[in-house]
């Protein structure tokens, strides 16, 4: 069978927090593996903002002359047009994680499951608290994904009138901000049963704040995305507050790059949409989500 040459570009957000660092790591893993084949070339670009990513797309097309693109858009709406332009130049486009507002601009879509990312912890917490208790939540940086997750979380909580979501504030997917927000939640609310930190970086800050305040009322801190340290804690059972997590592994980028490169090599197409489900991680299945070499 004829093997096409593949010149693949990867455009992802820069490693400004752990999850994004995981993306960079997995992109590089995929590059290492694919480039064992001399007919495949992978170019990775990281951007710290939507306009920068749009610039990189231009440069990838004009200068690097890519024929396939895997992109994790910095922002869905903002990158729709730039990606359209890339596709118009005949490049095969796989979009990862954050869907474009106009799906005709992509050839394939591989994503995590943001709804489940909010729903799974909601359902878990509702069950663990027996439908009764006080929850505080920390949100990420104001973005569409953050909204999706929050909405999913709240829609589940609507069915559990016994559970009160006391407040939700932005911890910006950042340990320091989460620490401060949690400190103030602890000052403000004397009875908290569980915390939904919506990201393991934030969960980390939350744990430190709880530890410092020596509060015993909190039973569960639910992070998210399955960071290596948290999964390890879960596996070892070393912190009673950490009982479960929800997967949202940056590894899907690795899969997406590999799938795209290999399909292009064979001249095949990818399925229009592939959703990598977000599933509950507990002590039992934790080892399947533990990647000790990844920075995330």
């Amino acid at each position: 069978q004829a093997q096409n040459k593949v010149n693949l570009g990867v455009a992802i957000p820069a490693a400004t927090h752990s999850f994004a660092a995981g993306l960079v790591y997995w992109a590089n893993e995929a590059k290492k593996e694919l480039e064992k084949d001399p007919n495949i070339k992978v170019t990775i670009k990281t951007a710290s903002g939507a306009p920068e990513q749009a610039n990189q797309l231009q440069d990838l097309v004009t200068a690097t002359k890519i024929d396939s693109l895997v992109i994790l858009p910095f922002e869905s709406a903002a990158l729709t047009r730039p990606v359209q332009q890339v596709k118009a130049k005949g490049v095969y486009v796989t979009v990862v994680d954050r869907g474009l507002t106009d799906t005709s601009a992509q050839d394939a879509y591989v994503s995590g499951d943001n709804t489940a990312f909010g729903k799974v912890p909601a359902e878990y917490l509702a069950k663990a608290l027996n439908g009764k208790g006080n929850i505080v939540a920390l949100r990420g940086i104001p973005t569409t994904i953050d909204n999706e997750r929050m909405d999913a979380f709240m829609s589940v909580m609507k069915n559990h009138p016994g559970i009160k979501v006391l407040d939700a504030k932005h911890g910006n997917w950042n340990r320091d901000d989460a620490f401060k927000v949690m400190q103030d939640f602890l000052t403000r609310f004397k009875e908290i049963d569980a915390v939904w930190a919506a990201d393991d970086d934030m969960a980390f800050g939350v744990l430190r704040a709880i530890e410092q305040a020596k509060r015993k009322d909190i039973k569960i801190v639910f992070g998210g995305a399955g960071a290596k340290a948290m999964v390890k804690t879960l596996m070892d059972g070393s912190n009673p507050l950490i009982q479960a997590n929800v997967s949202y592994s940056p590894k899907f980028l690795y899969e997406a790059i590999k799938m795209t490169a290999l399909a292009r090599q064979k001249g095949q197409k990818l399925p229009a949409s592939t959703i990598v489900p977000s599933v509950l991680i507990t002590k039992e299945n934790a080892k399947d989500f533990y990647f000790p070499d990844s920075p995330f």
Partner: protein
Amino acid sequence: MPPERTDAPAPAATRRWRLPPLGPLLGLLLLCIAGTLLNREFATTDNALNVLTRTAFIGIIAVGMCFVIISGGIDLSVGSMAALIAGVTILLMNKLAPLGWPPAAVVVAGMATAVLLGALFGLAHGLLITRGRIEPFIVTLGTLGIFRAYLTYFADGGALALDNTLADAYGPVYYGSLLGVPIPVWVFALVAIAGALLLKRTAYGRYVQAIGSNEQVARYAAVDVDRTKVLTYTLLGVCVGIATLLYVPRLGSASPTTGLLWELEAIAAVIVGGTALRGGAGSIGGTVVGAILLSVISNILNLTSIISVYLNAAVQGFVIIAVAFMQRRRP
């Protein structure tokens, strides 16, 4: 009566003709040579136009920022302001479209709104600084938060996206070209030329320099200091408005991360271009070169993969310092 100085030890040498700031230009040249060596594609017209087009936003803002800095002020809010203007413009256009306006009319209305809003925000800055007698740094640090918060609020934390039909009607403003040169580059050039004329050839520009050099002297010379300052911040606002009206069709959306750190880039372009932060003197030409220089650095980094992606920012840092070193103040 001043003594004839035929026998004087060549004092004329101390009054050399002042050339436009050569440091940044030299830096740009060296960078371009490096770029060409690293990737053949660098020196193509396509790439050059790409770089110029994307420089347009920061470049246009930097032209306005140059005036503010020469006048001895600063504006930290331009990034947030651009984001809020983009958001409001998009909201407005999306509201107008269903009313049956033709898309072109909606787009024109949107563009006018962008400029108008920019002027209004700039005016507010100017009034707070002159009438309110608050340091520009504080005023614009405050509005930096305020503008972005309101955008986040309007966007409900997510993104505001332009309707598709409108996006198509608006697209050519960014993606179109005239005589082979993209529209944003034309606009950038026009703004830069207008800025240079305004600075060097009008009384207003002269007053801006006088105020930055010595506000008291300007006041004594019956320069209307407050009015000039208000005008300067308004001018920057208008520049931000123009940059935004070019930005909206490019990405067709605004979100809480839009325009993040543009203020730093714009200020950096001005300073790298040889204008002193303390005000009094500066040049639009240098500012334009500074803005282009900054985007060329990241363009070259995009075109090559010789160093770890993590170190991109370090390379930019080293280049900025090196360029500044080349044009450092004489002792």
